[in-house]
């Protein structure tokens, strides 16, 4: 029996899945594990892609939204291409990621979320990605000491002209901002459900160890 919040999460996810062409194929999964074997980053996951699908079908949505798997996926599409049941695994993981972000299911100063937010701020501001500003702001918001630790690579890139000194703003920035504002009204409403913040205990901290 699903708890109320799991039932609600499942409904939200199914609504997302419906918008993915072929999303209903999720039910065709034969748990063969080709996705896990093909995944170049499964070594850093707490749940393998195969387990993610199995757990979803078993109704363990909340647990799976708390796994670090959905954040570690590099969207290389190897699993999607090799899946014998033709399931769009990468896009399903994206859908889980969006739900977790909308519900605030991730630790404080969580790098993936901060990076995505900083990235979208840059696009809203300039219309293009301003790498130098992106990296500095992102590191300041997640791990300021890394700014110091990474100064060598930063300097090396800068010396070779790989980091722009100033942002490049597009002429149509006002129009782009109107497009973004309008499009935002169609995305799922931000309904942050009050729930205890998860901590590093779940395993986020163990990434890469």
């Amino acid at each position, binding site marked *: 029996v699903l708890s109320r919040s799991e039932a609600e999460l499942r409904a939200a996810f199914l609504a997302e899945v419906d918008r993915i*062409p072929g999303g209903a194929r999720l039910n065709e999964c034969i748990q063969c594990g080709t996705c896990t074997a093909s995944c170049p980053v499964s070594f850093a996951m707490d749940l393998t892609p195969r387990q993610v699908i199995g757990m979803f079908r078993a109704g363990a949505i909340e647990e799976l939204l708390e796994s670090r798997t959905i*954040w570690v996926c590099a969207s290389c599409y190897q699993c*999607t291409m090799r899946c014998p049941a033709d399931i769009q695994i990468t896009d399903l993981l994206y859908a889980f990621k969006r739900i977790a972000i909308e519900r605030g299911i991730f630790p404080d100063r969580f790098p993936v979320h901060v990076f995505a937010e900083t990235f979208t701020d840059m696009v809203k501001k300039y219309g293009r990605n301003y790498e130098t500003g992106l990296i500095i702001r992102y590191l300041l918001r997640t791990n300021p000491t890394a700014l110091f630790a990474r100064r060598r690579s930063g300097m090396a*890139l800068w010396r070779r002209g790989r980091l722009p000194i100033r942002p490049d703003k597009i002429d149509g920035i006002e129009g782009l901002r109107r*497009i973004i504002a309008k499009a935002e009204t169609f*995305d799922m409403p931000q309904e942050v459900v009050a729930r205890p913040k998860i901590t590093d205990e779940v395993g986020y901290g163990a990434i890469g160890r």
Partner: protein
Amino acid sequence: MRAVFAKLDAELVELEDWNCCGATAYTSVKKTVAYAISARNLALAERTGDDVVAPCSACYYVLNKTRTRLAEVPELSEHVGAALAEAGLETDLSVEVRHPLEVLINDVGIDRIAALQTHSIAGFRPACYYGCQIVRPHSAIDEDPELPTSMERLFSALGASPVDYPPKVRCCGGMLVATFGEIAEQLCNELVGWAVERDANCIVTVCPLCQINLDLLSLNGGANGAPLPVLYFTQLVGLALGCSPEELGLEHGLASVEIAAPQLATTAHTGEPT
């Protein structure tokens, strides 16, 4: 890249006022916005009447995904259309989005590129790296997505000696370099290590993000203590066609291209045909 296309009588024009395609970061957060900003580029491109050539695998994939998804999902298409209307633009899905590798192979052809060669690149032993999104989930090049060979065919025809490189379609980690650096570093280490083991003296990529991720390793001495230059594939084509290292931007590489081609250091490319 523009210099290389010019040598092949193909003119590349920068798309006026293009914006960021959104990449994977946007797709993770706001879906409609991700499609809408990508669709703005398609709408701008339609006015020029030209095809879009996207030199980054992620841009290539995101723009193409926008085309297919908007065609398949009426609700999404309606929303994106409404958003674009705010800036006086209309959704247009007729523009072809292509990758430069596919353009060189299919439109120009390996034979013609080889016929226009003026300089030898015989000393290069490239590991040809395709990475993810130009072969997956939809292959840009008409060949086996698990084992593409077009770069090998191209560079062999130009007299270089591509090495056998089994991990050619494995992932470099992409944006994980920013979020989970250790994971990306491990993937890149394996990719560069494999190239070193196969006796390559450079890696050739089809995506600037793969290029920078692999190149960053050289700051720590590279895999197995051997820094390898990492070139975008048109840079190596350009050397064969007689473009200068400056035109090709070779000085931007972290691992110097001289590791693969010592002659580029001393003669500074005289422009003399070989």
